[in-house]
């Protein structure tokens, strides 16, 4: 058995080296997905970007993806499998693939890797992520304008910096409209549990919140808000189908421009290890159309988006007060620096809650 595997591996290697000799051969690009491609959220958006990539460069590349790859040690095998199959550029699309990707990258220095949302890099391993907090700031402004009760409902997944910075950005945006705005936060301790997310949305609405925001992946909260005639924001994807009269906007991950640029660089031979943290200006994500709101709110949202895109407005502009009223150190000049945002583990003033486990 082992002999057959070795023989197969040798054959693959041979095929690979022969392939390199023929310039006409297509570049092989691989993708590792966390969920099923039909999850309507995180993985779905990566899959849309892959399809766009094929449409753009299909005559020069060949793509493969592996879906439902669990984070952790199993991922290493899946990544290595893609490399052995001759993929020269591999995108690993979830935070938990960070260490497995790094391990495989060290083993195959001639293959290039792209890891989403992580912080570990190497000569042949880049990272990329998006400044979603910019979108959350805009959502905060819209939410404060649309809320009659002055109470926002926020469904959190896990209290990690990305989620905490999202809550803070939302509140900072909302406070520009209503300084006394309140937010109720419910942690469901899961990225994906439609039933529990729906229950959390119901609980928030029952307690007086009238705009629902979520940092979990299913459209269930949107559906609950729609059923009750309240408002909500989508997550990762366009979710208007689940709440035609409820969705105000949605932060949509749009990885396609980045994927196309990186694959082009690989084709040109100019690929270099980088750290990309793209915002609205780089189109790393987009806002879904502003719907179900009066024209003045829509205009305000669009103006805010334009100001952030142009770099005139930073959601975390100083001074920022922490929950206890003390000033937060301002490391980025007139705003918090990237490190402070990426590692955020405190609430800003006005959030009447405690970060679990702190």
């Amino acid at each position, binding site marked *: 058995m082992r002999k057959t595997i070795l023989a197969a591996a040798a054959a693959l290697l041979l095929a690979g080296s022969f392939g390199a000799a023929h310039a006409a051969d297509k570049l092989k690009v691989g993708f590792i997905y966390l*969920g*099923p491609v*039909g*999850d*309507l959220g995180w993985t779905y958006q990566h899959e849309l970007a892959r399809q766009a990539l094929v449409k753009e460069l299909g005559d020069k590349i060949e793509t493969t993806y592996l879906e*439902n790859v669990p984070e952790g040690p199993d991922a290493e095998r899946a990544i290595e499998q893609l490399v052995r199959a001759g993929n020269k550029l591999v995108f690993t699309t979830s935070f938990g693939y960070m260490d497995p990707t790094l391990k495989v990258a060290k083993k195959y220095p001639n293959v290039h890797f792209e890891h989403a949302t992580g912080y570990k890099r190497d000569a042949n391993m880049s990272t990329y992520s998006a400044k979603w907090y910019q979108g959350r700031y805009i959502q905060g402004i819209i939410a404060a304008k649309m809320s009659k009760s002055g109470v926002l*409902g926020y469904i959190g997944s896990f209290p990690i910096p990305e989620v905490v910075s999202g809550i803070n950005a939302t509140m900072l945006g909302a406070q520009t409209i209503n300084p006394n705005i309140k937010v*109720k*936060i*419910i*942690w*469901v*301790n*899961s990225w*994906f*549990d*439609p*039933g*529990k997310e*729906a*229950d*959390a949305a*119901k*609980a*928030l609405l*029952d*307690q007086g*919140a009238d705009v629902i925001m979520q940092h979990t992946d*299913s*459209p*269930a909260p949107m*559906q609950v808000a729609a059923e009750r005639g309240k408002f909500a924001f989508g997550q990762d994807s366009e979710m208007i*189908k*689940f709440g035609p009269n409820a969705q105000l906007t949605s932060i949509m991950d749009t990885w396609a421009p980045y994927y196309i640029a990186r694959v082009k660089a690989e084709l040109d031979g100019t690929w270099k290890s980088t750290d990309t943290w793209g915002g609205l200006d780089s189109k790393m994500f987009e806002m879904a159309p502003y719907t179900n709101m009066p024209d003045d709110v829509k205009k305000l949202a669009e103006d805010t988006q334009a100001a952030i895109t142009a770099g005139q407005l930073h959601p975390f502009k100083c001074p920022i007060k922490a929950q206890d009223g003390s000033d937060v150190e301002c490391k980025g000049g007139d705003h918090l620096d990237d490190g402070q945002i990426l590692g955020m583990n405190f609430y800003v003033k006005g959030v*009447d*809650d*405690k970060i*679990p*486990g702190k």
Partner: protein
Amino acid sequence: MELVEAIILSVLAASTPLLIAATGELVTERSGVLNLGVEGMMIMGAACGFAGAWLSGSVIIGALCGIIAGVSMSLIFAMMTLGLAVNQVATGLALTILGVGLSGLIGAGFVGERIQPAPHLYIPLLTNIPLIGRIVFGEDAFVYLSIALIVGVSWFLYRTRAGLVLRACGDNHISAHALGYPVLRIRLLAVMFGGACAGLAGAYLPLAYTPFFIPGMTAGRGWIALALVVFASWLPGRLVIGAYLFGAVSILQLHAQGAGIGIPSQFMSALPYLATVIVLVLLSRARTGGSTAPAALGTVFVPDR
């Protein structure tokens, strides 16, 4: 007062799938078979139930499709454990893995589609009674069905001869066999009933709870149902209490967070399982009064022909 009503409505909805699935598993285990594949049968019920409802436009047909899917899955289990006398634990776990994968395949074409959820009962005047009106007279059919089911099972197990025979198979299959009862056939029916209930419970999720289908949407409810049977110490009455208690804990912890009551949410999420462990400890210490596990639970039976 409105908040209390809202909480009770949410608790009833959250408890119903647990109660239905656990009722089925209780009957299966009472016959001496441990089927750990509840999660797999539930998710298959969810996928097929949604597919049926979407294609036909009828929630009832969807529910029937869910039941059929659950029974089909349980037949695979029965073939292995009753027919071939394979280890029940391993087969049950395999059934869950199979169900999760297969349901993703079946449901793939239906992701992103929407259906009209199961309608809620409305009786003029009665449903409008403040506080109790909507709770008692304004639920969807699944809620009433779940209560009818557990009452029926309770009556069957303790008030009928067939129920007595089923329990005998679970407590001592050799004696039951010696008395001339068809142990394997009785267990087959019990396993199928468990599958039907799990399928129906799974179908409840996309048909009434969150009216869309996404792979993996049962999110561990099958395992909670299994824990529930142990928590209830295999007694139908305690099962009802347990199901609503588990449902209440899951809803109340969300409300506690929203209201800013400082109980760690991780602790609250773990509470149902913690309660199950405590009940197991209590049961093992005091073996008087309540019944414990069916004596032949999980052991294979090969008739000596």
